[in-house]
């Protein structure tokens, strides 16, 4: 079991460029979550998929962020026109079942730096 895989581990973009982050959840897990971690804000929920369907994107900044899950083996988080305040570690997690008690397994994160 390779765990949750996130690529790339580090990404540097210039202001205004696009960034695409990839997540491969653990095989068989039906729930996928994206979080953002910064020193100032801590860990924040971004979005959630269940069986590939988007369920809750209430944490996503509306204008430039989007997430997709085209198949059960990967999800992407895309940030258009990146800004310095988007610099953060983006974490992907998956869980076997979508319920409040299910353990979420986290990937190592993608550190995004916007210059």
């Amino acid at each position, binding site marked *: 079991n390779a765990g949750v895989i996130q690529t790339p581990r580090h990404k540097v973009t210039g202001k205004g460029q696009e960034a695409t982050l990839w997540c491969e959840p653990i095989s068989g897990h039906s729930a996928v979550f994206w979080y953002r971690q910064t020193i100032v804000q801590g860990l924040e*929920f971004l979005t959630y998929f269940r069986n590939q369907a988007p369920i809750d994107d209430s944490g996503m900044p509306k204008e430039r962020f989007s997430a997709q899950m085209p198949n059960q083996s990967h999800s992407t988080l895309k940030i258009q026109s990146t800004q310095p305040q988007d610099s953060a570690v983006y974490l992907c997690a998956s*869980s076997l079942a*979508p319920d*409040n008690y299910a353990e979420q397994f986290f*990937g190592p994160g993608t550190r995004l730096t916007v210059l």
Partner: protein
Amino acid sequence: AQSVTQPDARVTVSEGASLQLRCKYSYSGTPYLFWYVQYPRQGLQLLLKYYSGDPVVQGVNGFEAEFSKSNSSFHLRKASVHWSDSAVYFCVLSAGSNYQLIWGSGTKLIIKP
């Protein structure tokens, strides 16, 4: 609104000493509570979780936590810390129908030799 408060940003403990990391939550319903740990340059890992039953729950590596409904608390404890316990510890609440996790700000644990 749901929230989690970890009042101590940093805790320093001597190796072999006991440990308590504090956590308070705010939620009107029945809370699902977790402690996650983030070791340097590693991903977040679950230490333990609580939903119901015995208010003292055991986790990995000798950690335990005690739930108190009256105090809205879920403190983490360990009888004897090891240098390898140095990490950031997060108290987490799962609430609502979309299973998103609500995170405390984290407590950085520093172990003195």
